């Protein structure tokens, strides 16, 4: 039951990571640098977000304490 509730939260956490990464990149491009760097920060931070999601999966798969 505990494992179900932990691993049931993986999906939404991965998608939340991707959206947070995308949002941070979008903010940097459009608000902070005033559209001068337009596609780049969004793409880089989207990559960071996707990587963060998969790292969350990796750390969960490495846990042995439950």
């Amino acid at each position: 039951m505990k494992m179900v509730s932990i691993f049931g939260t993986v999906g939404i956490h991965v998608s939340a990571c991707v959206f947070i990464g995308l949002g941070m990149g979008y903010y940097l491009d459009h608000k902070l640098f005033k559209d001068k760097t337009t596609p780049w920060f969004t793409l880089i931070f989207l990559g960071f977000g996707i990587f963060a999601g998969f790292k969350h999966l990796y750390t969960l798969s490495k846990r042995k304490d439950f």
Partner: protein
Amino acid sequence: MEHPILFISLILEALGLPVPHGPVGDTLLSKLCAPYMTYTWLIMALLIILPKITMGKTEMVPGSGQNFWEACVGGLEGFMAEHMGEKRAAMMFPMIATFAFYILPANMMGLIPGFMSPTSSLNITLAMTLIVWVTHHFLGLKYHGIKYINHFTGPMWWLMPLMLPIEIISNIARILSLSIRLFGNIMAKETLLAILFMLVGAFFGPLPILCLGVLVSVVQTMVFVLLSTLYCAGAMEHAH
């Protein structure tokens, strides 16, 4: 999608108070009269009154009422002590037990016609999540001081420019996932029940969804409590 009948809103409207018909009102009074606020107050009143009635005076040999509450509190504390140790569980117990005792009746309340789950509003879940998030960072800073940054820099120092943004993104995503999970599950249950009551209410159509609703309420309470315990425990542990 709003509920067809909410009895507290009906009573407040009969009293002449401005009950908002959208998600949020515009004046302070109508914000306070929004359904999720009034039902939160109902749950607060229940949580204050119910133990007073059932428990009475605490005795050395507990009666049935006191036995029930002792089992609830003791079970929750044991559950937390498994993850963070006796002493830290005793320290974190008031906050997390408050969440547990509030979220469970709040989720269950939407199963009764005429009531609504306050947790089916994003305002409530986001508020609770922000409390947990700020608290676990505060605990991390309190236990580790400036070394708390080791939690975010990854295992090797030369990986730091890569790991730092990733860990920060992953950490901010906790706010999003913890709040939207509870909100989404409970709102889905509420909306489904409301639609089924309107369409096939005469043929006991919502009955299977009511059974599933009990399961969802309990599981989501457990997930919220478990994850907030794990986050607080993780912030207090040493970085690996």
